[in-house]
């Protein structure tokens, strides 16, 4: 019998075993495949409600009787003015109100004597939900200030530009695809996550699980080498992993392209080309992570022990992209060579609609491919050690 036949025998058995594990299948399907699109729908809905809020600003005002002209200006700008409750500060702290405009009682007197009048914008900037209301209230007040100031200058025969030496224009270079940054992050993150989660249950079951149920010893007495056995198990886990990743991405593809999601004004693109690029970028990880999981799994005498060992790996894989995302600095060139970080970098690029040149893909694949070989070798050595027999 050729070695390839033996390996194929192991692959077939492991795949059948995995597909029949109903609990693992359910958990995998839920965490990797359904959760991503669900999250996405949630985030898009939050974004949509925020956009609605920005469009129709509700502004409670305290002391509106002191500044009728300002109130009229705000009302012309479609702001819904209401009377602020007396305890508005407490309500803002509690998150019941987003922002309140408080007009100083001395407003009229100050205006009459030509001094700067005071209005106070009260808010809690730590609340993400309130941010768009705060921003639009601020910019409306600034606009009113500018209009009023220009009018005063014009009355005195001075060109309005004299009082405004700097003219600031906002030019946002983000393409429509770039602006949904959080959504981009989520999709890339989930792609990475799927490549870890997809193989986890299967890898642990075929290593620590095999030790736990005492089926490893008779298997090791079969005429196949440790390398053949490990390669067979790895090929099965990686195949399953690839399947989970493909299904996860397909879930995103279907959600983003066909689900009735609210129009957020982010023409976010995740089409067939992006799907293909994602799979290509994740391919090295689909090889690497199952190999590492097999090695870690073999170190555990029981499934429970192996799961504890795996949590360290889980932590690294789930934290790296988060750190990378929030550092917000331009990535150093060497980052491409680092497993997981390199993939996350390329995934983010793919989502911004950029192509992935082979020159960028190759370095990102180099370390994972080398580490895969190393992990498989280490696992083969581990499985041929006498200590794996000592289960009890």
């Amino acid at each position: 019998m050729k070695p390839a036949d033996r390996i194929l025998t192991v692959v077939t058995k492991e795949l059948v075993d995995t597909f029949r594990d109903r609990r693992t299948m359910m958990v995998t399907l839920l965490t990797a495949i359904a959760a991503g699109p669900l999250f996405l729908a949630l985030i898009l809905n939050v974004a949509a409600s925020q956009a609605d809020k920005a469009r129709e600003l509700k502004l409670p005002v305290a002391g509106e009787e002191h500044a009728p002209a300002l109130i009229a200006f705000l009302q012309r700008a479609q702001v819904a003015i209401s009377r602020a409750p007396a305890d508005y500060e407490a309500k803002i702290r509690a998150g019941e109100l987003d922002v309140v405009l408080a007009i100083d009682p001395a407003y009229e007197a100050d205006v009459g004597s030509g001094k700067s009048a005071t209005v106070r914008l009260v808010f809690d900037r730590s609340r993400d939900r309130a941010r768009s209301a705060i921003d639009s209230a601020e910019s409306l007040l600034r606009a009113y200030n500018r209009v009023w100031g220009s009018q005063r200058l014009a009355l005195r025969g001075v060109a309005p530009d004299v009082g405004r030496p700097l003219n600031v224009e906002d030019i946002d270079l983000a393409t429509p695809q770039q602006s949904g940054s959080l959504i981009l992050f989520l999709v890339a993150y989930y792609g990475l996550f799927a490549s870890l989660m997809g193989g986890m249950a299967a890898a642990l079951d075929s290593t620590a699980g095999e030790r736990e149920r005492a089926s490893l010893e008779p298997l090791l007495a079969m005429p196949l080498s440790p390398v053949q056995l490990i390669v067979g198990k790895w090929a099965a886990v990686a195949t399953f992993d690839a399947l989970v990743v493909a299904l996860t991405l397909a879930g995103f593809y279907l959600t983003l392209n066909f689900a009735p999601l609210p129009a957020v004004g982010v023409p976010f693109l995740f089409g067939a080309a992006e799907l293909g690029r994602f799979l290509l970028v994740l391919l090295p990880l689909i090889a690497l992570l199952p190999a590492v999981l097999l090695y870690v799994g073999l170190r555990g005498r029981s499934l429970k022990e192996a799961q504890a060992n795996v949590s360290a790996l889980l932590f690294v894989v789930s934290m790296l992209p988060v750190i990378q995302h929030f550092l917000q600095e331009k990535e150093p060139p060497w980052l491409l060579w680092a497993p997981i970080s390199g993939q996350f970098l390329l995934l983010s690029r793919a989502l911004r609609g950029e192509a992935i040149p082979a020159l960028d893909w190759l370095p990102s694949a180099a370390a994972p491919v080398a580490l895969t070989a190393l992990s498989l070798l280490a696992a083969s050595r581990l499985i041929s050690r006498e200590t794996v027999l000592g289960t009890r």
Partner: protein
Amino acid sequence: MIIVDALAKSFGRKREIKAVDGVSFRAEDGAITGLLGPNGAGKTTLLRMLATLIAPDAGSATIDGLDIVHDRFKVRGRIGALSDARGLYGRLTARENVRYYGRLQGLTGSALDARVDQLLAQLGLAELADRRAQGFSQGERMKVAIARALVHDPAAILLDEPTNGLDIMSIRGLRDLLRKLRSSGKCILFSSHVMQEVAALCDTIVILGHGRVVASGSGAELRAKTGQATLEDVFVSLLGSGEGLAA
């Protein structure tokens, strides 16, 4: 035929635990050889070495002339080992469990199908054949594990404490099977700490204690040699009662 020559194996960081310490014996074809010894005498380690699962520190052993270290993979094709660890794949059926090992041993196609059918029928597993193994009783698991170990029709059969956890009916069934295998010319080596088991079944008995062969021969020879009436007395006279719980 199994020939064991001064086989030794130690464990521990400084190799201070001598599990098997220079064991030599022969197990003939067409005979059942029993390894009898108290817990910790080195029976499992010895059988694991013969099954090529662990390498000896010193000494050698051959199975039908094949060395257990140098011809490891050939040896694996000639032995059927039923170890203490006899876990099955719960999500596979009895038939699939046996087929997996058959395929790994190089059987394919109709030869594999025929052999698996024959074994399942012979062991009375025909009705369970296509049920998943996770619901099986101890005895049923044992039968599947035996079928798995015998699927490639090995010349030598190694069994480590095969009667552990089995009921009387299953033990009797196992004895009948081993006698049948003996009459078809197989070399059977089995370990036990149960005196009656060994007495009822074995042509030759090798008594192990502290990793060494304390005595060997047929039941009658051992009784004559020690002047004791029963095998149990032989055992105690050779190893001393200091081994037991009362010590």
